[in-house]
């Protein structure tokens, strides 16, 4: 369970997050909102790249913000990024192994890595260099990096961006199984509402840095305030 209390982030004159308070219970939670709403800023706070002006984040009872950024992975935070790809010149195995070796808490590396690769459905030789893979497979490598070992909090930032529908469906199936397999709490940010509906039991909505709705996904997506925040964007 992640409890966010009064989280505020200010850059100069811009308030990116405005007293955001929300609780993510368990399973897979969605985080949606129009562009610039603060979703990536929130992830950056969780990753430790941005220090908030005020507020707290308590993750599974521990104060997340007091940890140095690179130590959070060892604690169990995993993240995928909107644009960053898996490391091209390394193999699939090395990509996933790297996360495991810097954040492992016991267990066999080879087993962890290979089972993560199988879990996401990548049935290829792990020694394949990532630069030879297509976009969909690279995304799966990133998801494998996010689930290897013992993650506690998995942050997925627009994992379906740029993927065709068929591969998005594939990705959705994998994401749905993450909590069951790892016990981690997963937060999914995406603009694809069908993906969010398919994967997330609960969803929170940000608009201009403020939380405007949260609760069961179906209810949230029908909420008037959410629809009007998205005015101009196609609803699911």
């Amino acid at each position, binding site marked *: 369970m992640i409890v966010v209390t009064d989280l505020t982030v200010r850059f100069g004159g811009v308030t990116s997050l405005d007293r955001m308070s929300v609780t993510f219970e368990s399973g897979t939670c969605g985080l949606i909102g129009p562009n610039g709403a603060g979703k990536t800023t929130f992830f950056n706070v969780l990753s430790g790249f941005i220090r908030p002006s005020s507020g707290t984040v308590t993750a599974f009872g521990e104060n997340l913000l007091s940890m140095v950024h690179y130590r959070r992975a060892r604690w169990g935070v995993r993240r995928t990024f909107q644009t*960053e790809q898996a490391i091209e010149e390394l193999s699939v195995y090395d990509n996933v192994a790297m996360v495991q070796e810097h954040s492992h808490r016991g267990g066999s590396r080879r087993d962890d890595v290979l089972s993560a690769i199988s879990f996401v459905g990548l049935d290829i030789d792990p020694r394949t260099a990532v630069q030879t893979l297509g976009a969909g497979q690279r995304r799966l490598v990133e998801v494998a990096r996010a689930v290897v070992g013992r993650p506690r909090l998995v942050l997925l930032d627009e994992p379906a961006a740029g993927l065709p529908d068929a591969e998005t469906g594939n990705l959705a199936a994998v994401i749905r199984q993450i909590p069951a397999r790892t016990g981690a709490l997963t937060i999914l940010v995406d603009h694809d509402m069908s993906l969010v509906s398919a994967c997330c039991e609960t969803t929170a909505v940000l608009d201009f840095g403020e939380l405007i709705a949260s609760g069961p996904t179906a209810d949230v997506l029908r909420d008037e305030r959410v629809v009007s925040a998205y005015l101009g964007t196609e609803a699911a």
Partner: protein
Amino acid sequence: MLETTEVAASTRHRTRLRRPATRTLVRGGVIVVLLLFALLALPQLLSLYYVDAMTEVAIYAVVSLGLGVLVGRVGLVSLGQIAVLAVGAWVAARLLFATTQPYPLVLLEAGLVTMAIGTIIGLPALRLRGLYLALITLMVAGAVAIVLASTNFPNGGHGFFGYNGSLVNIPPIRRPSIATSDPAYYRYAVVVAILMFLLVFVHIRTRPGRAWSAIRQSEPAALAAGINTTMYKLWAFALASFVTGVAGGVYAGAAHYLYSIDFPAQNSIILLAVVLMGGAYSLWGAVVAGLLSQLLPALLNNWGVSNDWLTILFGIGVVQVLTTAPRGLADQVPKDLARLGLLLARLVHRPAATTAEGEAP
């Protein structure tokens, strides 16, 4: 909690992970043959003039190796590696005059002191990004150059700086007892170079190398994967400084007499140019860089052509590499001369492939 199908798949892949590719073995064999040739046959075949040039090639290949680690592996540009080389040479010269320590120990100490200095300077500098980091290395190098011009290089005098301005007969910097002649010293230099390349090779193939790849791709993503990026960047700085310091020690023995005009500012820029042209990412690129910066000038000198043409060529080379490299300074795709090497390799491989086809079931 692996499913049976997952276990089967992973076992299948596990066994595939263990067998090394035949291509790697062949490549390794070629390298060993080339090295043996360079060590044993080359000094016999070349005149003393070219043996000296090849010694410089060995030295600058190591310096290029250091810069290649920074630029090609981590994505950090240093515009002051020649100043680092000068520091290494200074330390080695000081120790060689002041003590009777064996040469390998002196080289090691030169490397370690240079590494310490490089790390201390790197620590605050690493907070800077890309351009600013490059510029601060330029600034520090400039400052070091001025200090060296003032304190001069050790020439057998006493005191901390070991410099005596009024000495008439300056003693030459000694060489290892087993390698006093030029050809013998050349072999010594090549052996040291091989050791430095091995050191870097081991780094690249293990944890630091993977971390560096991650950092070069995206520092935030690396942090999110749990990599302490500051530590690994510092490690790269330390490694580059160490090998360059050792190279400086070898330089001291090669040159016998050191002067600050041996380390002009433009050489740091030329070094960057040849590293980019040879390919910052591959270890071969460092060798190519050494050849470009030390053998070509020797050849041109012999033929009566001015070295300035090379400077112009390197300038064009920098711009060409940067405009054609699709992804910044650290590009894995082979460029120019490296591409030429690929072409040659392909020519060698084609006849090999046809014989293999005949053997396949």
